[in-house]
């Protein structure tokens, strides 16, 4: 079987390159075009969400109120979280999936190419709606990215209505994207590419897509209940009518906890390709990696209330969610063990993708350990809503998800652009990011343990020194990402031509096509032995 690429709507057999001009991008059905758009959109949102973080860190540079009003500060923390989660991290992984999954499994394109384009374009629409609320009377959403009721219902600004619809649009986009990924993986693998031969990035995305389809509708459900409470007089989250504000948190975190694995599993997959490539050894424990990913996904559905230990969950619930949460350390430990064992006695070199991948393993593990601390219910009573939590989830998201994305970008940039990126600049980007990120987030552990609450524009004097260090680290990390933009543009515009397989230890079908990858690949599927 082979593929027909319909260039003129008549089913011509001969194949052209991309269309010319702007409409190429607006109307495209090509997985590489759509992947590229996802990645650029994600990077734009990363800079926007990052600039909001800069506002936050500038205000927290010193105690006292210097730069912004507390009301605006709240909008910044809310928007920073929403944009980074839904605008930066998730679309980056969908972009990587679009580019790489068809190349890795020998498919001609994604299974449902027009729907793929629809999934992408919904995102700019959703974020236009969301970000524009910052300029509306009453201001943008100010209730934190977790938008707990009744802060987000009874006491919300008017813009919450548009926030709700923006979430709906993002949800539709994610669900369609995930359906496309599943259909592609299950139906478009090249002959001989059995499930247990798939690269781990494909496996982790298959499981991520399942999580997305399972929980994005629940998010849609919870924002719909908010909409009803705000505009149609229902009492889902109001005890006065027999409802319960805690219900909001249950439904939200039933979505929210699998969501954090949605943001990390594809990074696990990418790193599982990159570490073997630069260790010049096959991945240690492939099968256990697959099962560990499945186990993490399963556990992610039964741990949600560990976000709610202090809200007043019955003791039985506290114990169940505490132990279930601790269980996640087992499959995650399997993964970390496998990555380290892959490197063990390997012929290691440390090009930029490997630097990011190794930093990923070490720093994500730190984030995992602080997660284990938070999982202990009685200890969490102390940590809850302090900067310790902020430190924890930034350690899993920045050197976890974001470093995974950077590692992937450097690893596959030669395949995308046909040029090698500038290795010296790449390493500089890594070290500045590494130092900036640790400087920004490590002190947050200390101020958190000392009791500094999160989401505050002002704080007690005793936290001043560490906050200043955090802010300097954050500014360093932020500025470094503009440097990353420069590296990528430089790589697109020129540089040493990349061979089909630029990394000698790399494995996989994506390296069997030329660099840059032709506009259409694998119209006749390859045979996989």
């Amino acid at each position, binding site marked *: 079987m082979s593929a027909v690429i319909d260039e003129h709507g008549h089913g011509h057999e001969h194949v052209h390159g991309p269309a010319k001009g702007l409409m190429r991008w607006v*109307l495209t059905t090509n997985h590489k075009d759509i992947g590229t758009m996802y990645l650029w959109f994600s990077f734009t949102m990363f800079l926007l969400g990052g600039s909001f973080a800069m506002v936050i860190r500038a205000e927290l540079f010193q105690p006292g109120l210097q730069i912004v009003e507390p009301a605006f500060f709240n909008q910044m923390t809310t928007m920073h979280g929403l944009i980074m989660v839904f605008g930066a991290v998730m679309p980056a992984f969908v972009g990587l999936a679009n580019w790489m999954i068809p190349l890795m499994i020998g498919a001609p394109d994604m299974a449902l190419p027009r729907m793929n384009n629809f999934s992408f374009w919904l995102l700019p629409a959703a974020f236009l709606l969301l970000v524009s609320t910052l300029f509306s009377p009453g201001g943008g959403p100010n209730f934190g990215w977790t938008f707990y009721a009744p802060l987000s219902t009874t006491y919300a600004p008017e813009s919450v209505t548009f926030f709700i619809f923006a979430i709906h649009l993002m949800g539709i986009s994610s669900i369609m994207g995930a359906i496309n990924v599943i259909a592609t993986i299950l139906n478009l693998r090249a002959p001989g590419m059995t499930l247990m031969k798939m690269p781990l990035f494909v496996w982790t995305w298959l499981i991520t897509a399942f999580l997305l389809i399972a929980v994005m509708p629940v998010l849609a459900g919870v924002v719909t209940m908010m909409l009803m409470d705000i505009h149609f007089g229902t009492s889902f989250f109001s005890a006065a009518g027999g409802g319960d504000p805690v219900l909001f948190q249950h439904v939200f975190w039933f979505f929210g906890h699998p969501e954090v694995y949605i943001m990390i599993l594809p990074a696990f997959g990418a790193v599982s390709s990159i570490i073997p490539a630069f260790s010049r050894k096959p991945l240690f424990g492939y099968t256990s990696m697959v099962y560990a990913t499945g186990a993490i996904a399963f556990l992610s559905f039964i741990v949600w209330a560990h976000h709610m230990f202090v809200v007043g969950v019955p003791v039985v619930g506290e114990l169940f969610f505490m132990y279930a949460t601790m269980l996640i350390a087992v499959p995650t430990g399997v993964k970390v063990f496998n990555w380290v064992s892959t490197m063990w006695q390997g012929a290691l070199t440390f090009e930029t993708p490997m630097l990011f991948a190794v930093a990923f393993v070490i720093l994500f593990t730190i984030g995992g350990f602080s997660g284990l601390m938070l999982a202990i219910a009685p200890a969490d009573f102390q940590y809850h809503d302090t900067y310790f939590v902020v430190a924890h989830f930034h350690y899993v998201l920045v050197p976890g998800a974001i470093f995974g994305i950077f590692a992937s970008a450097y690893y596959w940039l030669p395949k995308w652009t046909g040029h090698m990126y500038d290795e010296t600049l790449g390493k500089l980007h890594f070290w500045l990011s590494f130092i900036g990120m640790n400087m920004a987030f490590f002190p947050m552990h200390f101020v958190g343990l000392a009791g500094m609450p999160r989401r505050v524009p002002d704080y007690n004097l005793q936290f001043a020194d560490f906050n200043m260090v955090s802010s300097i680290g954050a500014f360093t990390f932020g500025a470094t990402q503009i440097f990353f933009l420069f590296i990528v543009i430089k790589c697109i515009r020129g540089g040493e031509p990349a061979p089909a397989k630029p990394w000698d230890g790399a494995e996989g079908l994506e390296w069997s096509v030329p660099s840059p990858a032709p506009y259409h690949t694998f119209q006749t599927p390859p045979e996989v032995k």
Partner: protein
Amino acid sequence: MASHDHYYVPAQSKWPIIATLGLLITVYGLGTWFNDLKAGRPDSHGPLIFFVGGLCVAYMMFGWFGAVVRESRAGLYSPQLDRSFRWGMGWFIFSEVMFFVAFFGTLFYVRILAGPWLGGEGHKGVSHMLWPSFEFAWPLLNTPDPKLFPAARDVIDPWHLPLINTILLVSSSVTITLAHHALRKDHRSALKGWLGVTILLGIAFLTLQAYEYHEAYTELGLTLGSGIYGATFFMLTGFHGAHVTMGTLILIVMFARILRGHFSPDKHFGFEAASWYWHFVDVVWVGLFIFVYVL
């Protein structure tokens, strides 16, 4: 036919961007409308914007689905592509199931945990001190704060209209299966007959549901605002009704396609997907009948 064993990758398409713009305009209009209503601002542009967006979405659906139908009939779709559609529809229905899970979960949480707590029972019974006179019972015929949320005088009797509706929908699941069997045996007139009966059953269900809502609002005082009972009742039955409406429209489109001679005994995934969807709304209804009406 060479193209039959090729995986069809469509050319550039304008429909996704029209769909995006249509949806954006729709939700912007809806949001403006809702906010203006709540703030009491007269002369809202919301309804007009919403209407324009809805037109865009309707235009997109005609255009996009029409293109798919034409491509399918031109023989461009291979069996492999057919499998992509099957996976796609299957996982879409799973996402719908999860949407309803959120509302069923809400119902169970309130009935089993939060409600009794508010009435003073169990581990968190301390919340009883908020409204010490409140007693929890299901159906909820008194709310903690009746001024804010006046409770319903009574609830719908499951053994009248809801029972009839259950019989209607379960029979419609049978009739659509009979239609599917007729299609596979190429009995076109039986196909038209059974599908027509299915559509009529769907419309009858919706009519009775509308009548039931009318009765709830005018005679029982059961409204969206009558506490958590009204909220969960209308949320679950309302979204289910919206899905039945959508399913009926899909079946009507299938009926029109069958009148034009579409579908063959071995190639009719459009019809099959519609019937999957119909079975899904039927199963949800059985859950509703048991957990919302009877228990």
